[in-house]
């Protein structure tokens, strides 16, 4: 696909036209880091030795997290669901702490207590990493409430999938966001499948999910998710609405995951979707390849430089595997740490009464 023939060129959107070469390369680097990180994670997962549980890969959707998070200011916050590795790296978390978390190590971002679905970095305004579909949508509302309560000009970017739009708490949250005028941006990453159920089979309206916001007078938009310039332009509009008029937005971004719902999803290839469909996305809609071509066309990148960026990301990912392997497991006693603040701190409250009942 030639980016030159696109109907609208988002490179000229104000938020993109002012990007420096280095900033543009950072966007590409960010996407490559997610992809390389997850490729290494998948390789480790399939060895069956170091990881357990689920592994929901974000590969194919990198432009969404990187594009959106590249717009964050000091008072902008992010929360997402269980497919959270991309957002974690996008807000600036290190590969080491993320890979170590997948390995269940004490050096993981959640000390090995959360796993793949539960990455957190409040110091980077990243509030998870949530396992229950749609369960994070009221929390995103709460982040926006907290911002408004404190009089801060910020936005809560709350990511959710196309499957999550069918959860009730999302609608309760939309009503309250609109009623209370809260600066929350619900970003639906529409990758077309809620596990093995296609959008066709899960939504009565097939071509638009964001439109559901109309019932609550919430401004909404649909945009393409494969072009990182378009993602940035669309998210920026929503962030400005949040900052300047403290109003919510629903933004639906069209995207695609190359792997299954999780790695355990055996039917994603030739089952509920065809191999051809996957190959078309990889060939014509890959956000990294599209942006690579774009930057080459802009004269900011060569093939060799791209390979170097890709190799650097791969090396960083491989080093994170080594870091995770070399890291210690949590001590058995850690099972009872981080349950209660007051107990951890051994405050008077934490020392009063019995908090645990296993003996």
């Amino acid at each position: 696909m030639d980016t030159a023939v696109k109907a609208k060129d988002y490179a000229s959107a104000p938020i993109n036209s002012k990007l420096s070469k280095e900033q543009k390369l950072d966007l590409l680097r960010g996407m490559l880091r997610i992809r390389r990180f997850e490729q290494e994670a998948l390789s480790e997962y399939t060895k069956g030795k170091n990881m357990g549980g689920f592994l929901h890969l974000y590969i194919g959707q990198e432009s969404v997290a990187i594009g959106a998070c590249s717009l964050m200011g000091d008072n902008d916050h992010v929360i997402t669901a269980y497919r959270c590795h991309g957002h974690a790296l996008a807000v600036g978390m290190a590969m080491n702490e993320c890979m170590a978390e997948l390995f269940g190590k004490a050096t993981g971002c959640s000390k090995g207590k959360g796993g793949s679905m539960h990455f957190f970095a409040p110091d980077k305004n990243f509030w998870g990493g949530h396992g229950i579909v749609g369960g994070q949508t009221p929390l995103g509302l709460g982040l926006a409430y907290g911002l408004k309560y404190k009089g801060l000009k910020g936005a809560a970017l709350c990511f959710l999938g196309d499957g999550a739009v069918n959860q009730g708490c999302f609608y309760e949250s939309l009503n309250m966001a609109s009623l209370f005028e809260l600066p929350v941006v619900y970003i639906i990453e529409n990758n077309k499948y809620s596990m093995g159920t296609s959008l066709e089979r899960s939504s009565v309206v097939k071509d638009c999910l964001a439109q559901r916001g109309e019932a609550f007078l919430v401004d909404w938009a649909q945009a393409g998710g494969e072009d990182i310039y378009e993602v940035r332009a669309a998210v920026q509009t929503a962030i400005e609405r949040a900052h300047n008029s403290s109003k919510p937005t629903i933004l639906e971004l069209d995207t695609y995951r190359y792997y299954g719902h999780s790695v355990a999803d055996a039917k994603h290839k030739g089952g509920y979707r065809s191999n051809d469909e996957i190959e078309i996305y990889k060939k014509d809609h890959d956000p990294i390849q599209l942006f690579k071509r774009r930057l080459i066309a802009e004269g900011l990148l060569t093939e060799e430089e791209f390979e170097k960026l890709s190799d650097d990301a791969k090396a960083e990912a491989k080093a994170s595997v080594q870091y995770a392997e070399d890291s210690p497991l949590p001590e058995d006693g850690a099972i009872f740490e981080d349950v209660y603040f007051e107990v951890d701190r051994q405050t008077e409250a934490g020392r009063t009464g019995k908090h645990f009942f296993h003996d």
Partner: protein
Amino acid sequence: MALIEYRDALNQAFAEEIERDSNVVLMGEEVAQYDGAYKVTRGLWKQFGDKRVVDTPISEAAFIGMGIGASMLGLRPVIELMFWSFCTVAYDQIVNNAAQIRYMSGGLINCPIVIRGPANGGTNVGATHSHTPENWLANIPGLKVVSAATPYDAKGLMKTAIRDNDPVMFMENTLLYGEKGEVPEEEYLIPLGKADIKKEGKDVTLIAHGRAALTALKAAELLAAEHDIDAEVIDLRSIRPLDEETILASVRKTHRAVLVDENKPFCGVSAQIAAMLQEKVFDDLDAPVLRVTSLDAPAIYSPKVEPKQLPRPQDVIAKVLSVC
């Protein structure tokens, strides 16, 4: 000391904590302009305004989740459930978000919220409105569960709950809101995890929480007057954390225990206490540990019948007489 209603003791706790800490915000259905469905928050909206006392739509999942999310940024929401029975529609937010966020983030995130409201049967509102979910919630590590029987305890425990840095589930009782009790003029706090010996005794220990503690007290009076039995009454006040020491010390002294609990019997709070007693003071016991709980069926509506479903003093007396 002033003699005030249970609801006003709570009201004082809210007013004092709103004044003390700018991050404390009350929210829930009808808590502001309506003055509270049970008038627990009456006058607070007029006094403190829209920012600190917030009416919400009937959207328990959203406003409890919103409170949890806001607490991650440092607010201290005190969230009313008009009935604790309604926690079922917000259960994911309470169980998966409030209770787990600290653990799953490896201690990076706190959730200093209070969720509060009445949790009792006995008001002829049918099974859906009569749940006593303290055992459901105390089953979840990460949550704290508190139950107040008197105005004094309600105020002191609520102030502590609001200042606590963990999520506290606070159980009140519509049948107690109008009950009066003495509350000091000066500020006081009651720690979580400290039971209260409501009456000392030497022959048998009655262990209860919430309104059941008052039922136990009434039973103890009658046991003394009519049967010459000197019962000790322990009010747990806090279920998790639990004051194990006070319970065990009392049973070591009296050698007998009867548990009084408005929870249902299966895996109820009293089941936990009974397990603890047989594990830790088996050799001190002179009789089996017995329980008086709500009858094990959904709460019946019929106004003349429902009182029999909850523990009554005569039920407690009958159990005590069978072991004394």
